[in-house]
Each structure stands twice: as C-alpha cells, then as structure tokens.
C-alpha cells in the first residue's frame, strides 16, 4: 500500500489548491477533506465528540462521502452518496485509521494526497495520522501570517478563530486575534514533526508555490518519489480537473473550501508578502504582529 502524502497547514494557507494540484499528478489521487483523524472512531463523525472543538456537523462528512462515492461508485451523485453512507454505516465502529487504510488500499498504487486543516487543531490528531501510516510523508505548508489572518477573518466571519480560542484579553474587552491561531496551529505542526523522520517531512511557503509552481511542484514530486517529468507537472497545473474540484451532489455539497470549489482553476500569480512590522488591518489599535509571531514567520523565511 503506497504511503499517503499529507498536507499540514492552518486553514487559508493555499492547502485546497496545492492539494488538488498534487492530487492531479498521474501517480497520485487527491482526496477531498476527509476529516477522519478529527475523531478516533468513524461513528464519532456522526455522533460528535464532546468539547469545544467537537466535530459533529454534517459538513465535516461531505468530503468522506464524496470520496467514497467517487472511489467505490465511480461518480458523485445523490445515489452514490447514499451508497457511501451505507458503506460507512457498515464500518461505523472501525477506527479512523482503519477506514483511511481501507481507502488508501483501494486506490493503490496511486498515492493518496489529503489535507484537512482541522487536523492541526491538536497534536493528538496529527499523531493518529502517523500511527496509522508510519511511512506517510508530511508537507508543512506555510503562509505569511498577515495574508493568512486576513483570509481567515474574511471567511465565515472569522468563526475558525473562535473555534481555536484565538482571542486576546484587553483591559475590559475580549477580541478575536487570528495571529494566535496562525501561531498555535503552526506550533502544533512543529511539535508533531519532531516525531517524524527528517526524510518524511518537508516545509514550503505557499507563496513560493503560487509564484513558481512548475519548480516547486517538481521539487515536491521528487521528494515524494513521484515522476517529475514535464507531462506530470503539466497535469498538476490543472487542479480544476479533479473530480472533487466542484460542488458535490445536494447531499454532500462541500468537502473543501467553498471558494475553491467555486473557482478551482489555477491562475499564476505572485502573492504579495507584506512587512512583518507594519500595523495589521484586523486590529483597531494600530498594533502589529506579536514578537513571537514575527520570530516564527522569520524562521519560515518571511521578512
């Protein structure tokens, strides 16, 4: 069974696009957000687990349903999604690891490529991935904190920041502070990667991939043991060809960032990386990034 390739990154870090690009490699299979390692047992995706970051929404299951419909049913329709529910029902007491292993075995010899940004919310979730796939490869995708935070606050009113308790207490008020999410989630990833052999991990800036995809996608392909010839690279330049790069049937619409699903075509661009020292636009007190955030961003190569 080919070891999967996981993308690790906080939300809004180019993960949807990069995942779909890598998934279009002729020797790979790009999955939607399965969210499987959010829970220990499959049934918990339906039942929900306790706590502030519980996963009990139907949307968390859309990616898995669409993947099962596509892989086992050959298409994504209301009927095949219903079949996928039955498939999952028959395996409800399996661990998430067993379910993921079954999917990976089914698409063998293609390499599964997956990202679910919610995995980065706890180190435990990340460890479950490694326990399930000791030979898996991990691509740590980073994005400039200002760009990532602006994007995070623009989607769903910044609800994700609340979910990870990215809050700042001032004298008599509490405010959302997305840079805390950027920092803490990247910290979780770094802590997890301490336990991953060096040859199984790589870190890349999303802005670099967006600016020169041919070079960096080829780098990733070589590192992952995949072909890096021009044909393979050309395939990866078309994420919109993925069967998951669109909305799904009415009973499993999402499975990825809705913005990506609405416009998955890659348009070459060189994202601007603002200064780490300027005031940030989401704060009303004219302050900028925390010193800890600046230090971590610098270690990722931002200036």
């Amino acid at each position, binding site marked *: 069974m080919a070891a999967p390739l996981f993308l690790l990154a906080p939300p809004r870090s180019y993960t949807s696009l990069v995942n779909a690009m890598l998934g279009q490699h002729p020797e790979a299979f790009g999955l939607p957000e399965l969210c499987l390692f959010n829970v220990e047992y499959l049934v918990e995706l339906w039942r929900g687990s306790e*706590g*502030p*970051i519980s996963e009990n929404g139907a949307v968390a299951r859309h990616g898995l349903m669409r993947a099962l419909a596509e892989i086992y049913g050959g298409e994504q329709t209301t009927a095949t999604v219903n079949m996928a529910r039955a498939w999952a029902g028959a395996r409800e007491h399996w661990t998430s690891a067993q379910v993921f292993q079954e999917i990976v075995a089914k698409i063998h010899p293609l390499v599964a490529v997956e990202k679910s940004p919610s995995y980065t919310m*706890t*180190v*435990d979730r990340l460890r479950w991935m490694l326990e399930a796939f000791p030979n898996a490869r991990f691509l740590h995708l980073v994005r400039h904190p200002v760009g990532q935070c602006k994007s995070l606050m623009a989607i769903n*009113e*910044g*609800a994700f920041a*609340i979910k*990870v*308790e*990215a*809050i*700042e*207490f001032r004298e*008599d*008020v*509490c*405010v*959302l502070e997305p*840079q*805390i999410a950027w*920092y*803490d989630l990247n*910290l979780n990833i*770094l*802590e997890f990667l*301490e336990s991953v052999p*060096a*040859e199984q*991990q*790589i*870190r*890349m*800036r999303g802005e*670099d991939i967006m600016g020169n995809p041919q070079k*960096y996608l080829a*780098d*990733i392909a070589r*590192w992952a043991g995949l072909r890096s010839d021009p044909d393979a690279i050309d395939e990866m330049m078309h994420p919109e060809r993925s069967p998951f790069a*669109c*909305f799904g049937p*009415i009973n499993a619409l999402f499975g990825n960032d809705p913005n990506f699903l*609405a*416009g998955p*075509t890659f*348009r070459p661009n060189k994202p601007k990386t603002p200064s780490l020292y300027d005031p940030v636009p989401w704060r009303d007190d004219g302050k900028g990034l*925390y010193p*800890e*955030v600046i230090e*971590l961003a610098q*270690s*990722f*190569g931002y200036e």
Partner: protein
Amino acid sequence: MSDAPVTPKPKITKRLSPVPINPETKRSDPSMLTQHQEALRQAMINVFTAQKARRSLERQVQHISPNRNLAEGIKILFDDKGRPPPNAPLEDIVEERRRLEYHVMWFEGLLAELKNRLVRTREVEEYAFEMLSQATNKE
C-alpha cells in the same frame, strides 16, 4: 527536512492562546479561565453571533430576488446591445457557466426537498382523512 526551500528549524515555544489546555482532554478549555475572563469571552461570542446573524439575514434578503441576481451575473457576458463582447476572457465565461450551473443545482436541490416534503405531507393528510372517516363510520 528536505533541501527544497532552506529554512532554519524553528524552536517550539509556548502557545499564545490565553485559554488553558485541559490536561485530560488536551484541548482548550474556556471553563478554566477566571470568571472575569470567561464573562469577557462570552460577551465577545455574543457580539460575534449577533453580527453573523445580521450578515446572514442580509444575504438571505439578496437571495429573495434570484432573478435579479442571475441577470446581474450574466450581464458581463453581453454588451449594451445584448451581444457578447468580442474579447470576453475565456476564464470569465467558464466561471460564469460554472456559477450558473451551481445556481441551477441549488434550485434543483430546493425543488427536490420541497417535492419530498409535499409527498410526506400528502401521506399525513391522507392518513388523517382515513382516521377521520373511520371515526365517523363508528359513530
């Protein structure tokens, strides 16, 4: 670490969220905040929820006039005489086609749900009439 983009290995420090981690669940636990902090946090969430509801309502109002939205959406494909512009970018046309397809998909989904509800309501209605007629016969 691979040799692709060379970056120094960052040091792992303390997390920034002021909400303590519960050692048992290993997750952020707001109940471990002080009473004052918990009240401030709850006030922030209340404001957030109210703002979100207001924005959601604004969006709903926009959806009430789908015909106008659709007309606005395809406007870019035509000039003031109703002809498609000669140099419309292919990406825009493809994007517009996808957007319209999604609109159609949403309406089809809505229609399917309404039909489903109609079938169920009819069943309930028929059952109610049947019960009523049985009760009348017994009397």
